[in-house]
């Protein structure tokens, strides 16, 4: 089941570039939350702070606190532990090119030392079902490589891979921006189903997408969170002038 996320006074830097400034918000459990904003405003940086992927960049630095469930992820745990609980789907599909479909989905478990083969089969099947890919790939699970799938299928494979470790939170950084419209709508349907079980944070610069899948939406601008509210409120009656300008297309 999903857990809530509580972000307090989060600041992030790339070198001297102060990328995120004093972010505070509460992301509700088992719902989808969208983050919108013009490109370069810090959305990716923000979600990467939620599973400490930010730290893979040597010049990056973070202050503030992030609580996932009842765990302060910066004070009370190591990055690997966080990342096992907080799955991530990236902008470009990134299946492991040398692995079969099956191994791609099982990777998170196998590489963490999970050895139970029987239950692995089951988990792979469930994850692929949950990512709506099972019917398309069930016949060549171990024959085809992950890289041989189409772009949309690859992205769903990446979602299945993230689901296989049974995370509590799923971060998605523009998961559909590299995909065609049909694949995009499949991913959106998927998010819609998954949010019953997982807390989903989805970055998008497609406002319709945010409106379709998310209950809550946050608007980022220049490294600050300008407004965070119910999606309906943001899109129909935003309280901040800048939010209104952005969603009506007056800039960005």
């Amino acid at each position, binding site marked *: 089941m999903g857990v809530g996320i509580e972000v307090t006074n989060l600041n992030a830097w790339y070198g001297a570039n102060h990328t995120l400034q004093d972010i505070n918000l509460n992301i509700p459990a088992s719902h989808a939350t969208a983050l919108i904003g013009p490109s370069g405003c810090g959305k990716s940086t923000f979600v990467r702070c939620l599973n400490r992927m930010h730290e893979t960049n040597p010049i990056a630095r973070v202050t503030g606190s992030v609580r996932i469930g009842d765990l302060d992820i910066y004070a009370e745990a190591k990055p690997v532990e966080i990342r096992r609980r907080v799955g991530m789907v990236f902008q470009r599909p990134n299946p492991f090119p040398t692995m079969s479909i099956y191994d791609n989905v099982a990777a998170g478990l196998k590489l963490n030392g*999970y050895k139970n083969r029987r239950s692995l089969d089951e988990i792979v099947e*469930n994850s692929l079902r949950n990512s709506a890919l099972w019917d398309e790939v069930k016949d060549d699970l171990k024959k085809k490589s992950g890289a041989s799938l189409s772009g949309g299928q690859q992205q769903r494979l990446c979602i299945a891979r993230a689901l296989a470790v049974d995370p509590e939170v799923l971060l998605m950084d523009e998961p559909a921006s590299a995909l065609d419209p049909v694949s995009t709508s499949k991913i959106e349907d998927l998010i819609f189903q998954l949010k019953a079980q997982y807390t989903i944070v989805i970055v998008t610069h497609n406002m319709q997408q945010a409106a379709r899948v998310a209950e809550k939406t946050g608007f980022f601008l220049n490294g600050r969170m300008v407004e965070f509210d119910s*999606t309906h409120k943001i899109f129909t009656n935003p309280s901040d002038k800048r939010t209104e300008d952005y969603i009506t297309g007056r800039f960005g």
Partner: protein
Amino acid sequence: MPEIRAPQIPSQKLKTPAAQKPAVPAVPSAVEPSLVRRFLLARGNSAFADRGFHWLMVLCALSIFGIVALILWQLVLRSQLSWHAFGFRFFYQSFTNPETGKPMYWDPVNSLFSAVPFIYGTLLSSFLALLLAVPLAVGVAVFLTEMCPRALRGPLAFLTELLAAIPSVIYGLWGVFVLVPLLREHVNPGLIQWFGWTGLFNNDNPTGLGFLAAGVILAIMILPIVSSLTREVMTAVPHSQREAVLALGATRWEMIRMGVLRNARIGIVGAIILGLGRALGETMAVTMVIGNTPEIHRSLLSNGSSMAAVIANEFTEAVGDMHLSALIEIGLALFIVTIIVNAFAQLLVWAVTRGAPAQTH
């Protein structure tokens, strides 16, 4: 205002992953995590393994410094005897043969050692090699990068690669049985007849071995590396440079000369020096064709020896500690010189290729 459309809730009922696992209660709750979750939670953070792995890799990388230090240390240690006996004079002294009164450099029986004839042989054969190889190598590189039909480029590059992969001992074999007879029968007589007056080609060595044979075989051996590095620095010259020159109405040669060679010249010098580094230390082929005589002659057709050759030739049969020590000191000198030459060459090549823009063609 974007239209807000109510999302379609798919009719198909979702099964939770946990619901299908027999080991876990049918209705999962937040307090009772799934099998997978429990496994991962118990998994630990691998901080220790990660740190260990990191340091292991650092250790592997540091081993490169370790090797250089080790070589230096051992060579210095084992050459102490000769160093204390001769000091720096080892590299310039000469002795006099009591019977003939002629200068003499290397007499293991009487423990008289001087590196002079070997330094001379190494420098002379390497210089000859560069003289022969550099124009050819640059020519080949120009041909391959600027003029060669695309279809020929692959096979020719492959041939150069092969040439670079042939072991030294096989060049030596070929040198002994093909090159040396060829020089002896057909080339040397001509050189003696036409250029004997220069003093560089004396008719006093009927074997065909000697500095010239060593120089030719070295030239063949360093050609691939010089030409492929030259090619690399030439392709690193940005296209805008060529176009700028062509736009002035230059011919192809002028474009190559002004647009390419001028911009790549530091890198080409680097490639040549790298070739020199190889030639200085090349052992087997030279040993097999240079004649292995510790003497200094002006004539290129005379027998001689080189630093690497004398080590290869005498080390296992050295007659005493001083002899061994002297050979090791020659090895030490060779090591230091090649390190300096290679480091210098590397810096030059890097200076050109590192700032190069990504190749888009």
